[in-house]
């Protein structure tokens, strides 16, 4: 990616991220997040991760964020003026986060990735075929595990989110259960 493209995009991404954090209106926050996720997909394309970029848009922007927006509208969340932190608290948070950003950013900026010495990318890097091969060979366990993970999430979400039957619908208290 050319620097002339990268820097403006990076600024936009950071702006989007700040939008998530700073917007009072939850819907605007969510939309900022969607924008940030789209921008990330652009980087993925530039980094030769085409399938990941597509998934980013389909899964994140398409599914996860819709879920967020759905919940926001379901709860009818409006801008909350009470959503402000005390200055001291905010300063502590900002200080820690800045420290994190500076330390991490500087270290990552300066690092030389071992093995990254201008070697050309391997054949088929980033293609769906290569990725799929990897998912079904060395990451087979992880891949199968995600199915359990998603199943647990679904079961859990249903358990927590569905409305319970009213006590009257329940069978009579079983013996041994105190009133």
């Amino acid at each position, binding site marked *: 990616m*050319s*620097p002339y493209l*990268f820097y403006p995009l*990076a600024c936009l*991404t*950071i702006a989007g*991220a*700040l939008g*998530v*954090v700073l917007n009072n209106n*939850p819907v605007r*926050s969510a939309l900022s*997040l969607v924008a*940030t996720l789209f921008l*990330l997909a652009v*980087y993925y394309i530039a*980094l030769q*991760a085409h399938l*990941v970029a597509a*998934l*980013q848009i389909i*899964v*994140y922007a398409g599914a*996860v964020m819709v879920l*967020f927006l759905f*919940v926001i509208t379901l*709860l009818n*969340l409006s801008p*909350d003026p*009470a*959503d*402000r*932190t005390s200055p001291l*608290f905010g300063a502590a*948070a900002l200080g*820690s*986060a*800045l420290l*994190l*950003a500076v330390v991490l*950013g500087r270290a*990552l900026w*300066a690092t030389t*990735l071992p*093995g*990254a010495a201008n*070697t*050309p*990318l391997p054949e088929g890097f*980033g293609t769906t075929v290569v*990725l799929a091969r*990897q*998912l079904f060979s*060395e*990451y087979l366990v992880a891949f199968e595990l995600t199915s359990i993970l998603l199943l*647990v999430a*679904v079961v859990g*979400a249903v358990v*927590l*989110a569905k409305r319970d039957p009213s006590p009257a619908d329940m069978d009579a208290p079983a013996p041994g259960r105190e009133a």
Partner: protein
Amino acid sequence: MVTPNHYLALSAVLFAIGSIGVVVRRNLVIIFMSVELMLNAANLAFVAVAYGRGLMSGQSIVFFVMTVAAAEAAVGLAVILAMFRNRQTVNADDIALLRW
């Protein structure tokens, strides 16, 4: 020339912004969105490293992280929903029944 280091540094910045959001916001949904931002920062780092080192595994990892994020979103929003049903609030300050 834009190197993977640029992306890595950007990811660090996004990660930090996400962590600020998690801490300073009161709205549970926004806190949670900030966590998603942090996960995405990690994803960017994985993809950048994969590109920089010519390793495909980074991309596979991102695939899994997305799954985790989706699962977390489902459960997390359900938790928030259950909470909202009982208390009619998503403000973190209102939730301090358990303490000390």
